[in-house]
Every structure is written in C-alpha cells, then in structure tokens.
C-alpha cells in the first residue's frame, strides 16, 4: 500500500473539494458529510482482524505466578540462581547489587486446563476456563528493563519518546471504520494492589510524528467521556444546533470567497461534533446491557472506570467500529508483597477479560477482533529483597515473559514458546516485542515493512528495522 498519496493526487483531491464547495448549497454539502473522514482504507492484503482490543497490564505481571509453570522451582526454592543461568542478562539497579538471588517458587497452585492442557495459575480461574480460545506466548522478550523504556518500546517500537504508538499507526494505515467515533481509543483503570501504580504518558497513545489526528482519544469515566464533548452550561441542543447552522452558513460564504478546502473540512468537522454528542453517550450508556452481561463481566462492570466496565465498553466500541481499543490497567509492579498484591490485580481483571472473550465469541466478533493481553515485561525468578516464608517480590525481567492473544486469525488453544527450567531464559521460539508488533500488524492486513512514514529524511515504521511475523501463531 502506498500510504503517502502523491502530492499530485492530493492536489486534485483538494481541488475537487474546494471546487465542489463553490456552487453547492447546504444540501449538497450535507450529502458530502457522511463520507468525510470515515472511509476505511484498504490493507496490504486481506486482513484477518478488523480491530484490536489491547488489554495492557501496566507494570509487568509475573509470568511465573500466572502462566509459566515451573514445578522444579519448588525443590530449588531459596537456593541461589546458578550464575550459568543468570548469564549476562542485564539486571535493574534495584537488584543488581543484591548479595543473593534466591530462586523463588510461585506461592500459587497451577493446574492444566482446556483440551491442550495449558497450565494456568489459580489466580486466573476464569481465564483458565477459556484457555482453549487463547494462544499463550511464553517466550516474549524485550531488552528494556525499566518501565518507561519498556512500555514505550512495546507501544511505539522504540525505547525513547518521539515515535507514533501502535494505535496511531493502525489509524494511519487503515483509517476509520466508525462514522462518529475515533479510530483509536484509550481507557485507563486503577489496579487494586497497594503497590503504587507506575506512571503513564500521553506519548503511549500519541501520534509521534504522524499527523496528530491519529493520536488515541482517551475515554474517561468521570466528567466528559471525551474531553469537551458536552455543551457548556446553559447551552441546550437547540441552541447548539442554531449556532452550528449559523457557523455553517458563514463558513460557506467564506468557502465561496476563498476556495480553501480546509474550510469545507471545518464545516464537516463541526457537523461531526453534533453527531459525536449523540454517538458517544450512546456508546457509554450501559443501561441497555442485559443482566446476564453484567453477571458475566462481574459486579464491577457497573462501576465506571473499573477494568470490568472498560472491558464492556471495549466490546461496545468494537461493535461500533473503533479500530484500536486500548485498556491500561495499572498496578502490576510487584517488587514486594507479590502474593497479596498479585491476587488483587488478578481479581480485577480475570473475570472481565474472560467475559470479553466469551462475549465477542458469542456475538461472532472474535474471529475478526484481535485481543491481546500482557504487560511490558515479566518478573525475575529470584526474589527482590528478602525471601520470606509467605512473602516475596520480583524485580523486572525482560528476558522472558508471557502474553496471550485471542481471535482475529490467531490459532486458538495454542501454547507457543518455552522458557528454561528457571523461567529466566527462553529455551524455544523467542518472540521479540518487534515480532509481536509485526505479527499484530500482519493480522490487520499490514506488511510491517511497508507501513512507513517519512520523517526527517527517514522512512520510519513501527518495527524500526526489526520484526518478524510469527506465522505459526496463525490459523
């Protein structure tokens, strides 16, 4: 796909619009509007997934306590991690100075689930029940070992700020599928762990050097769901309509005088605000959801701003054609007190995430909706700080971690990749963050090497100069 239209094509497009604004009255303009801005663009090749729901577990969930079962660690519990295993992997400054690296077995029970016998920890019973729908990748890896660079790498393909986020690339590459909603939406929820939540940054859903209209739009649980959506106090819908009509009339006069296509676009965008003022509240109004749905997603789904409520909203957005829906759930940074805090975090997300998969499946949407679960890195096999009888913590670990994918062309019921007995190194089928992004783009019908944008003399892409599509994950 040639994303960048040539200037000549662009000129004629612009020319046409400017031109058509000249002799047209309100009626013709109105018929132009439904098209403006919302036509999707064709992918490089047929897409398996039309949209992505990313369930981002910010902080780095412990793969050792959730998915990557290491029964041998029980016997080694408390013993020093062999230096041959530790090798040369970089450790963060929080543990690199530790005198001891005691191997720490998970405090949680694991059992096999589903027809493929995937191991899942007791902390995620609902996830375990849908494991046949998931593809669990245990061999994710990243070179970043601190939150800021790791999450920036995962979301933008680069550890340092300045690049567009995945959702922005998706919006840029594929356009919108929704008439009245943005292509890229972000929702944030706060975890239940006592551990302080690590910071997020606007850049994680920013457009980087792409045009700013590709940046993610934050949907918020208090105040306006979309910033500035609601009319000011004292302005009702009729007054607003009146204002918009007068604006359109005067702007049409301006268009006729200046022939500037930007004016025609502006007229359309002001009309769009009016439609968004209906479309967004319609989206966020959960009253039409059935009792069964709330039962499935759990009682917190009724509490705006929770992960459960956001999962339900994500499904409603998916139904309405939002291209990239990203949930951030904060609080997965269990340096200390992992047993108690991880339990709380899992309780936040287990039921709603599983319910989302079932819900999508039931509605026939899972096949073209790609769901991604995971954080920016994993956690160490050794304990951070003192290993106590009932308590431990784990430091950041980029050497291996677990994510799961579902739907959208992903082969379900798969467990991909393997780590060593200590869950410190990858033993088989490594998947780098760039590989994951290349793979996700592929499912969206995009060749990651061809989705580029020229900035400062260089054709940038999400996967930088890296990335390999992991074909074996596909149906």
């Amino acid at each position, binding site marked *: 796909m*040639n994303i960048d239209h040539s*200037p000549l*094509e*662009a*000129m*004629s497009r*612009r*020319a*046409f*619009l400017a*031109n058509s604004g000249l002799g047209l009255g309100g009626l013709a303009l109105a018929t132009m509007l439904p*098209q403006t*801005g919302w*036509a999707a*663009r064709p992918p490089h090749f047929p897409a398996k997934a039309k949209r992505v729901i990313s369930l981002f577990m910010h902080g780095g969930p412990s793969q050792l306590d959730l998915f990557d079962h290491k029964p041998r660690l029980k016997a080694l519990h408390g013993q020093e991690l062999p230096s041959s295993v530790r090798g040369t992997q970089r450790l*963060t*400054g929080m*543990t690199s100075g530790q005198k001891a690296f005691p191997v720490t077995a998970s405090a949680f029970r694991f059992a096999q689930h589903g027809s493929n016998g995937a191991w899942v920890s007791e902390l995620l019973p609902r996830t375990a029940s849908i494991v046949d729908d998931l593809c669990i990748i245990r061999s994710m890896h990243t070179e970043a*070992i*601190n*939150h800021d660079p790791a999450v920036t790498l995962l979301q933008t393909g680069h550890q340092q*700020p300045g690049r567009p986020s995945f959702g922005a690339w998706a919006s840029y590459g594929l356009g919108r599928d929704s008439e009245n909603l943005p292509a890229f939406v972000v929702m*944030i929820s*706060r975890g*239940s762990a*006592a551990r*302080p*939540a*690590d910071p*997020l*940054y*606007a850049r994680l859903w920013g457009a980087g050097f792409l045009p*700013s*209209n590709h940046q993610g739009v934050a949907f918020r649980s*208090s105040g306006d769901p979309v*910033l*500035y959506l*609601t009319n000011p*106090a*004292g302005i*009702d819908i009729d007054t607003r309509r*009146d*204002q918009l009509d*007068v*604006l359109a009339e*005067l*702007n049409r006069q301006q268009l006729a005088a*200046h*022939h*500037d296509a930007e004016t025609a676009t502006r007229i*359309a965008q002001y009309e*769009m605000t009016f439609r*968004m003022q209906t479309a967004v509240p319609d989206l966020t109004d959960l009253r039409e959801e059935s009792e069964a749905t709330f039962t499935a997603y759990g009682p917190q789904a009724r509490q705006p701003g*929770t992960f459960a409520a956001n999962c339900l909203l994500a499904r409603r957005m998916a139904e309405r054609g939002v291209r990239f829906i990203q949930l951030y759930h904060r609080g997965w940074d269990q340096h*200390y007190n992992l*047993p108690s805090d991880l339990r709380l975090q899992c309780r*936040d997300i287990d039921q709603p995430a599983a319910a989302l998969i079932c819900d999508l499946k039931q509605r026939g949407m899972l096949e073209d909706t790609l769901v991604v679960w995971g954080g920016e890195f994993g956690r160490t096999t050794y304990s951070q700080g003192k290993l106590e009888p009932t308590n431990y913590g784990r430091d950041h670990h980029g050497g291996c971690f677990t994510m799961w994918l579902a739907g959208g062309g992903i082969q379900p019921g798969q467990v991909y990749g393997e780590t060593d007995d200590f869950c410190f190194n990858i033993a088989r089928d490594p998947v780098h963050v760039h590989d994951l992004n290349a793979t996700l783009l592929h499912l969206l019908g995009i060749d990651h090497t061809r989705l*580029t944008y020229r900035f*400062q*003399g260089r054709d940038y892409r999400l996967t930088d100069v890296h990335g390999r599509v992991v074909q074996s994950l596909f149906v």
Partner: protein
Amino acid sequence: MTSPGPGWVYRFARGETAAKTTSLVVWLIAVSVGSAAEPVSFNRDVRPILSQHCWRCHGFDPAARKSGLRLDERPAALRPADSGHAAIVPGKPDESALMSRITATDADLQMPPPEAARRLSAQEISVLKQWIAEGAEFQPHWSFAPIKRTAPPKIDGVAHPIDAFVAAKLQQHGMELASAAAPAALRRRVSFDLTGLPPTLDDLDRMSTESYEQYVDRLLSSPHYGERMAVDWLDAARYADTDGYFGDKPRQMWLWRDWVIEAFNHNLPFDQFTVEQLAGDLLPNATTQQRIATGFNRNHMSNDETGLIDEEYRVEYVVDRVETTTATWMGLTVGCAQCHDHKYDPISQREYYQLFAFFNNVPETGLLSGHNAPPRISVPGESQQLALTELAAMTQAAERTFEPLKMSLSMACRESEARLLDTLPTPPADDILIHTSCESPLSPRWRALGTPLQSHPGIRGGALKFDATQHLEADLPEWNPDGPWTIGFWLFAEGSLSCPLSMIEPEGNRRGLEILWQKGRFVIHLVHEWGTNAIEVATREPVAAKQWHHVAITHDGSRLATGVRVFVDGDAVSLDIRRDALTQTLTTRQPLRIGRRDEGLGYYGLLDEIAMVSRTLTPDAIANWKRGERLRGILETPADRRPARDTEVLLDDYIDHQAEPAARTARDAVQQARAAEQQLKASIPVALVMDELPQPRPTRVLERGQYNKPGDEVTPGVPAALSQWPSDAPRNRLGFARWLVAPDNPLTARVAVNRLWKQCFGEGLVRTINDFGTQGEPPTHPELLDFLATTFQDSGWDVKALLRLIVTSDTYRQRSQFVLKDDEPVDPENRWLARGPSFRLPMEMLRDQALVAAGLLKPRIGGPSVKPYQPPGLWEDVSYNAEESYEPDRGDGLWRRSLYTSVKRQAPPPALLLFDGPTREKCTLARPRTNTPLQALYLLNDDTYVEAARQLASDCLAATKTDDERFTRLSRRVLSRTLRDAEVLPLRGLLDRQRLRFRAEPKSADRWLTVGTVPVPPTVDAVELAAWTVVAHTMLNLDEAVTRR
C-alpha cells in the same frame, strides 16, 4: 487525475492538510522535467531517485554496502564492480549495468531487489537513462555546497528583491503575483506572524494614518514580538516544565524561556544567540544571563526511575543534545549515524561521536534524584537578593537577642523538669480498646508471629522494630469500627510502602480498615467491599521518613470521607479524598495486625505507644496526647543520655508553657526569621545550565549506539563533508558554536532563514524544514534562499531586519484566495507563491486571540509558568500512583499568553495536543496541521471560550448602543473587519432567537453567564448579555477566526 473516489475523501477530510507528506519524486518529475528537451539536473532529478532507492546498500556507509558498489560518487560508480561490470558508463545507458539491473524482470538480477519496499517507476527509470546518456555528471548535495551570493533577477516594475526572485519563477510557470490583500486582512496577517496576537482596534483605526511599513516596525518593537518568536523556539528546544521520563517531576526552566523572549526582543544577533545558547558558559567572564542561555541543551528529559542503569540514560541525554542541536541549527538528522554510518548523508558513525564529544562533558548523572538536575544555578531577582541580605541580618539580630536569654531559660528548664512530669497531660485513659507501650514482654493479649520481635529505643522506653518478617496480632471482638474511634501511635518508618496497622480481610471483599505508609504519606482505607464500597483518603503533604512522628486517625462514624481526620505530630493535616463510597459496615473477624497488612505489605521501621480508643478524640486531646508522651519519654531518660535534639524539645516546651512571654517572643523571632530565610531561599528560581567537567570525559564510538559497547576513542570534531573547522577555535562547545556561525558554514544561515520564511508563509522554501540532507526536498527557490542567507549573514545576523524584508515584500502581501483555473486551484500547495499563504492558527494564537478579543489577556512578559483552565482528573489518570493533581491558578494565571502555560510532558495541556502541539519530549521543528472534530469540540465547549465570549459581549454591550454598532465592534475585535450584510443576516437571526430563548429560560442564561471565574455585574441585562454571548461565541468559532489568511 481528478476522479474523486473514497480514497481521496479519506485522506483529505480526516483533516490532514493535503499533500504534506511528499512523494518527492512524483512532484519533481511533474514540475521540473516537464519536457524531454530540458537536460536532467543531478541534484534536482537524479539524487532523489538514487537516495531513495539505491544508497541504502550502495552509498556512503561501507558496512551496509553490497557487492562493493558505491553510487554516491562518480569515480566509484564508474569503476567496474565485483561483477566486472561498470554500473555507469557515461553516455551509454545501454552498456551501464545500472540500467539493465533496474529494468530486469528476473528476480535474481532485479534492482532494487524484489523484497525492497519500493520499485522504480517508469518515469524514474527514464530520468536515470537520460542522465547517463547526458554524461552522468554528479553534483555535491546542494545544502553542503557553499552558499552562493546571488543577485535578484531584473524584472520590470519589481523593486523588492524577494518579489524579483518569486516573479521570475512564477513567469516560468505561467503565473503571476496576486493583488495585495485588503489592508485590514494584511494587518491581521502580519500581526499574528510577528506578535502572535490579532491587531487591536487601535491598530485598525490607525490604518488611514500609519503606513504598513510603520505598522511592521511597531510590531517588531512590541514586547509581544519576543513572545511570538519564542513559541517556535520552545518547540525546537523541547522546553517543558517537567522532567518527562517516569515520575515526570516538576522542573524550573522558565528563566531560560524568559531569556529567549528577551533575546528576541533585544534582537540579539542570531550568531550571538547561537553561541550563548550552545556555549554561553564557556565565554570569558560568562554572565549569569549567558549561563542561563545554555539551558537550551538542558531542556532534554531526565529520568528518575529507580533501578535504571545510570550510564544508559546519561548517554541518552548526550544523544538528545546532538540530535536537537544538529536538527535546529543544521537541519540535519544525524541520529542515524549513532548506530552506523549514515545511509544517505555523508556522516560517518565516527563523526557522529565526534559531535557527541562536544556535549559529553557535563557533570551529570543518568539517574535523576530530587528536582532540577544539576548542574544548575540559583538566580535571585534583585528584590530577592535584597530580601536575602535583610533576612540574614534579621536572623542574626534575633539570635543575638535570644542567645543570652537561652542560657538562663535552659537552666530554668532543667530545674522545672521534676515538676513538669506531674503537670504533663496524660494519654487518653477512657474507652481504651487496646493499648501497648511496646515494651517486652508484651501483654498476653498480643500474639507475635514470624521472626522474633526486636526492641529498640523508642519514644517512651523501648519501641518495636519491624523488618517485614514479623507482626503482632490481637483480637478486638468488642470494637465497633462503624462507630466513632481514634487510633494513635508513634512511627519511625523506613522504606517506601508498607502497612503499620491493619484489620482487614486478605481476600474477597477485603473488608476492614488499614493504614498504609506510602513515601511519607499516610493512606487510610475503610472498606466494605474494595473497589465499590470504600473510603480512601491520603495525607497531602509528605513527612520525612526515618524520623519519629505521632500519628492519630479519627473517624466520627459518619461513613463519609470527611468524617476521617488525620493528625500528624499533634496537628490536623489536609487530606486528598480518593474514594468516598462507603455505605455499609467495616466489621470483620480479622484480628488487628501491627506491622503487616495481611500476608503481605510488611512494615519496615519502628512503632511505639499504640492505642485505640472507642470515641473521636478532640484536636486538643490529640495535641496533649502527643505532647504528654513525647515529653514523658524524654524526662524518663536521664539528662546525660538524652540526644541534643530532645533537650531542645524540652526547652521549647518550657518556653511555650512556663516562661515569660518575652522569652517566647524572642524565641519565636529566631524561629520566624530562620523560617523566612529558608522560605525565601526555596523560592529563588533556578535554571538548569551547561557546565564542563574539569577533565573531559573520554568519548568512544558506541557499537550499534549502545552505551555498554564502547569502541575507539574519538576527539571532538565536525563532519568532513561540511565546512572547515575555524583554525583559531577551541575544540569544545564554544568552538563548535563558532564553527556553526562561521561565514562559510553552508547550513546555519540557510536553515535559519528558511525557518523565518516558514514563520511568514506557513512552509519553508525548503519544505522539509528538518531535513536539509539528501532525503529532504530541495528548495523551491534556491537562489532566493541563498540570497536571504547571505543577506542575513551580511546584516550581522539581524533577525528583525530579515523578517522586515520578508513581510514588506509584495509576495507576502498578496491576497490569499486560492487561484482557480478551470475550477481547479492553481498550485494548491502554493509552492510558486502566486497567492498569500493561509493556515489554521496554532493553539497558542487561537487561545490568545480569544483572550485579546475579550480584553482578558494579562500582558505581563515572563515569569513562572501558569495553569489556566483544564478539565479535572487528567493528571491523576497518568501520574505516579495518581498522586498529582492539576490545580488551575486563581486570577491572572488564567489569562496569560498561552506560551506561559505549564507543560507537563506526561500529560500536556489537552488543547496543545488537540491542535498538533508537541509533547515537548523531543525537538520539534514543524507542527503538523490537522483539522479535526475534537478541535471543534474544544473551541465550542471549553470554558476559556465561553468566558472570553461573554467578556467580549459585555464589552460590545458597554461600548456601543445599537445592534448594528455591536455587530461591527464584535467583528472588528474577532475578524479585524466589518461584516457584509449577508453575514450580519444569519447572526442577527441567531441573536433574536437567543433573546427569545433566554427570556423564556432565565435560568439557562444564568448558568451560561457563570462559566469561568470573571463575575458578571449584577446590574447587567442577563438576557441581552446571554444572547450576545452566544453570538460572540459563534464568531470565535468561525473558520475565518481560527484561520490566518
């Protein structure tokens, strides 16, 4: 070409200004190689093709070079390659291997290879063919070649040099300059371009008596000129008010920002502007202002994330300086050469690290601790300097008065000790639920779990020492946690997060209560069901760790967050209410735990004198409790074993409670003077500055750009392909800065004038404003660019003079209407300048315009950043543990110019992001220009605009009498012109309908008129004002209002 399909609608109307991202080749072919008769130009026609398709593998970088073939210089390209064939045989395309490879269909032979992202078009192939046929001449890349001194072409009737260059090009394309814009439109245009503000009514009134040139001079001498110039510079310099990475802590750099404004206002020559910002600290006898100027290269982000590897980020800061400096002054992206030789431009990896070496000597660390990363300087203002001296004298004087008294007071205090013990208030004795003095052995009511308890000197006798491996439990079956209660204890906390006291379920609903220590703050959870039915409050001001504090928490049984109070060291402290949704009981069967939450969150530190009381103690009782225990603890220790600090505590207490009032006055005077001095010192602004290590840090080439893969050592230097290093320049930043502004540097002047051109025309003569390298676009008017560059240098780098030259040209003054031919716009991108430019105003100008039109703008220049209106909750969503809140200023801070708005990189002002502004994390030289519905929502619904519209309407109502006069005044204030009848008509209709509506709904009028903070005078006719406010609000949203034409 003109068939409109869904594709074009998509791209255009998503709001991107059309054709911004360029496929250069197509454009070049279309406009330049129009006829086969015209010979091919290497730089114009061939270089882009080679650069785009060939040089990645056959270019400057030997590591990436394939098959030994090099196509970026003539001798190498003519030499037979490994295959034995010469890629290029001049004059003989048919014998040139290049031609056979690019036209091959066999996948093994085809070039670029089949896996390449792009293929050559037929048009590109024919250009290469023609070029080889014409002799395959190479030219150096235009921007690396010396700036040519060019004279404007002679064109009849054209006096202004810019117009001569432009008219000559227009003639070539069969076009001509458009007529001049209307005088008022022109004033509006030039006022925005030079001051960022619309013309005032007075500026418009002066049109008949003041020439355009005089007006331009007035604008250039306005203090608002420097503000407007600073905005673009702040983008380039990635200026912000926070550190950016991870915790994104506040930083102070506004002194540097003010330096920039002042520098522009004083028209500091651009060479000096350059030298001072890059190396002001290295100038002989550097002034404070020159050191502040170096903040340019300290505006980069800083990282405070615990556990990061120091050198990794220290290197990152140097990388950022190199990138920002080269992009801003040289228009080059050298970043590619951080990992390998540049693939397109002649910059080797070694040369990259030679540049790096200039910026590698700052005494700094990668891991930021505290605020305002050193090196930094404190810069007291004049009045602060005076006050400092005064306060120091006051402290001294107070001490001199108090010292003699102190001697006798200390003696009296010691004598009173025995009596004091009898008169001290006792800790609460009634309604005690449980108490422990933390002496071992503990009463049998307590169960000790985990590792053995340790004792440690405490507030009274011993305290218990915890290290998260042990805790105490006790059962409190008689306690009703839903009724009133008080919990008090002494705490000496270590670590960042732990739980000193809890009574909470570990799983399920997590019902109960817990007190957490979180980096100096106390967080209290009262929970029926966590997440849905709970109270969470946190103390706002952190207290010091590793010090004793008395903590008391009271609850009045109301189940409201406001019913919870926290007292630290005897005083009530302010709380943030994070959750307030408790409606049901807290009762749980869990035991009271001391030193742990449940199975996790063990406490690190000391605890002493823990008590729970089944009523709400009064503030007085709590203050007494604290005092009684503290003093008892001291008095029970023999005097010779007391720490000095405890003796001070006793003395203070003696002075407070027993001494003569005069003693208290004298003591208070000392304390107040010291506090005032401290407070003043803390308020003195600081600025991050550049500094040099006494011994330069060795710089090594970093393999693949990695901080931990150092290779060969390099010395500071500049790329060989550019101009020579001045023989007398020192090999440091100062020398580098002098090299940049040396007359033979081919880039600096071109890049600078191109940016000034963009300021006035919306686009540069080189459209790729941040890429003057081989991948960028060549200038549309190369001779004009070089003329401006030499003029700029010759003038002594006079920025105001260059701007004046540009805005007084007819080219600038043309009307901006699109020119149509056969109903198609001619040159819609305005490359040939047959019309004046038009574009949507940047965010800063949009908001400033509304404030000016409303008469709200506070015109003060400079000072600390401000916080205007912003929807609540945005900082909480993303900040560390939701700890930071945006609190809008009260008063003037709401209406200062937008460049003073505080920028938090993690959560920049939302309007800035909506209107294409950067996050200020990286150097930004050009903002995109989009046109989106979210922008429309902001302009329609943000408080700023509603308040501005109301003030604007108020002004019109007060200043004029009739509707007609009011429409005129309104439109002059917003659009700088009067309305035509056809425009008044719909507005009049709107006004009349809104009058009817507000008359029928006076409450709506009241609500509409109370948005914002400026009060509406009670005498005003609310209906009339409300209706006119709707009209003004509509006007502020007009396409014409938000666009600079």
